[in-house]
């Protein structure tokens, strides 16, 4: 597959570091002058912009947090005057106050460049028809993919999310070859297209999925159902939106575009920087962002960086699939549990025939945490035999127990009875708040 900007994407490590050092030092200078919050933290730490000369100096700098975005809501962290901001995006604010981010014209250009690099790298060209089924609006998903797809000259269908039947009809009628949405919605679209007898009317060949965690098993299932190759994309609106890191044709980790974003992995408890290859919290610095720059932003995503050379020839580090979020992590009876662990078990039970639709319900009864897992039954799993259905229930229970070290109560429920959101799936219900 072609490489869009080989002089950058394949830049050798030495030159890349040199470039990052220069970008960091000028970014720090600019922010020190323009962002009150950042200047305050630097002063507190006794640091001056001149102390930052090379990329290794980044460890001296203070962290920034999601709470900063709330504290300086709406525009308090912007580093340019509002007349230079041409776009804002915001989070839906599912957990508390909304956060707002802003982009200059150059920021938007960089964003679409990042996505265009990915699209070119996985073989999307101006011959493709790209259906963007990420939400358009304050959410960064829709507009992010949109800009990149236009940049490579593809034909964009700005579908946005929702109305599944219309999504499938449009894909078929317009001959969409590329689909962009959340992985759970891709699964849903695949199942519905099959049910409607429309699978063979689709011309899809590539899928780009992100904005929520998904497993390798889910990838296989989506690829099989929709007859496509499915690629992972990573991003967060605080940093830019989707496109911070993306898979190449080899589907083995997402290249972080290091000429724009500098990644570190830290121990979330001690805040110490961890060596390459360790698993910990991802911390990102925007090296070139003008409108809304962030230094050492705590993403809360738990993952690992892979510095070994990639077969595609790109030198930019690969982000291995996030395993969960520090704030997704549930502590149940003192045990750390990531919903993705349960998902993995369900995918493996009975040779991947389970529709991985499930819901985790955590509650507290008589001062003890309870864990209930609802699993949707499917025609393939059902048998006219109480024993075999009971055995299925037991086998799921046993495998979750051995994966987590915690005994769940597993409930088999009717198909499609767990609510599937058109966007992000509601996988966890924690009813413990306020209970002791």
């Amino acid at each position, binding site marked *: 597959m072609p490489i869009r900007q080989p002089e950058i994407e394949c830049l050798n490590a030495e030159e890349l570091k040199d470039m990052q050092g220069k970008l960091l030092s000028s970014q720090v200078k600019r922010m020190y002058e323009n962002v009150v919050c950042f200047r305050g933290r630097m002063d507190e730490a006794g640091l001056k912009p001149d102390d930052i000369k090379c990329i290794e100096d980044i460890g001296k700098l203070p962290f920034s947090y999601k709470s900063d975005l709330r504290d300086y809501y709406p525009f308090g962290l912007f580093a340019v005057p509002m007349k230079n901001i041409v776009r804002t995006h915001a989070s839906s604010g599912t957990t508390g106050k909304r956060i707002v981010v802003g982009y200059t014209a150059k920021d938007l250009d960089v964003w679409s460049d990042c996505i265009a690099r990915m699209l070119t790298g996985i073989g999307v060209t101006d011959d493709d028809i790209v259906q963007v089924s990420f939400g358009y609006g304050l959410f960064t998903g829709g507009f992010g993919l949109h800009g990149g797809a236009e940049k490579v000259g593809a034909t964009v269908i700005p579908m946005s999310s929702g109305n599944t039947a219309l999504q499938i009809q449009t894909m078929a009628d317009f001959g969409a070859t590329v689909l962009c949405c959340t992985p759970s919605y891709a699964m849903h679209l695949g199942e519905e297209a099959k049910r409607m007898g429309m699978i063979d009317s689709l011309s899809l060949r590539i899928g780009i999925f992100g904005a929520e965690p998904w497993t390798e098993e889910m990838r296989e299932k989506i690829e099989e159902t929709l007859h496509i190759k499915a690629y992972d994309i990573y991003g967060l609106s605080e940093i830019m939106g989707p496109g911070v890191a993306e898979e190449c044709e080899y589907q083995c980790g997402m290249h972080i575009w290091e000429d724009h974003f500098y990644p570190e992995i830290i121990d979330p408890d001690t805040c110490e920087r961890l060596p390459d290859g360790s698993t910990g919290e991802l911390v990102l610095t925007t090296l070139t962002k003008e409108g809304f720059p962030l230094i050492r932003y705590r993403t809360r995503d738990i993952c690992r960086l892979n510095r070994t050379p990639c077969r595609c020839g790109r030198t930019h580090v690969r982000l291995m699939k996030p395993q969960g979020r520090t704030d997704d992590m549930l502590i149940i009876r003192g045990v750390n549990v990531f919903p993705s662990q349960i998902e993995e078990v369900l995918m493996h039970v009975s040779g991947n025939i389970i529709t991985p639709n499930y819901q985790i319900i955590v509650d507290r009864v008589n001062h003890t945490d309870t864990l209930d897992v609802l699993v949707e039954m499917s*025609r393939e799993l*059902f048998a006219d035999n109480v024993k075999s*259905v009971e055995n299925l*229930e037991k086998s799921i229970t046993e495998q979750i127990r051995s994966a987590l070290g915690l005994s769940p109560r597993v409930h088999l429920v009717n198909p499609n009875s767990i609510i599937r959101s058109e966007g992000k799936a509601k996988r966890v219900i924690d009813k413990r708040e306020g209970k002791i």
Partner: protein
Amino acid sequence: MKIKQLSVFLENKPGQLCVMTKLLAENEINISAISLADTSGFGIVRMIVDDPEKAQSVLSDAGIIGMITEVSAIAMNDVPGGLSSVLNALSAAQVNVEYMYAFVSVRSGKALMVVQTDAIEKAESVFQSSDLHAISPSDIYRI
């Protein structure tokens, strides 16, 4: 005779059985016999209906999983020892009964028994050589 039975998965939630029977009624499907096996977690409903394929598709559209299985149906002699002699014959042929339930065929007025065994073909030949009333598909299905 071998007949088709519809087995349905029911999650453990109030009103599930009611939802299912209402759907069948709305689609004019007659239930001749029904039996419910349940555990603490879920239930399996087994039914003899006059149009099993239609019933399965009606339920499937409503998100209820059903599967069609083959079972034996026999008409018994209405005399003391009728059931016992059938079971004796099965036992002699080393066929195990997994479950059974009785019903009256609305179409013929006959008293029938549904029997599921671990060897349906063998059971069928046992029934054929026994002193049992023959039944026909029209006793059961809408033909």
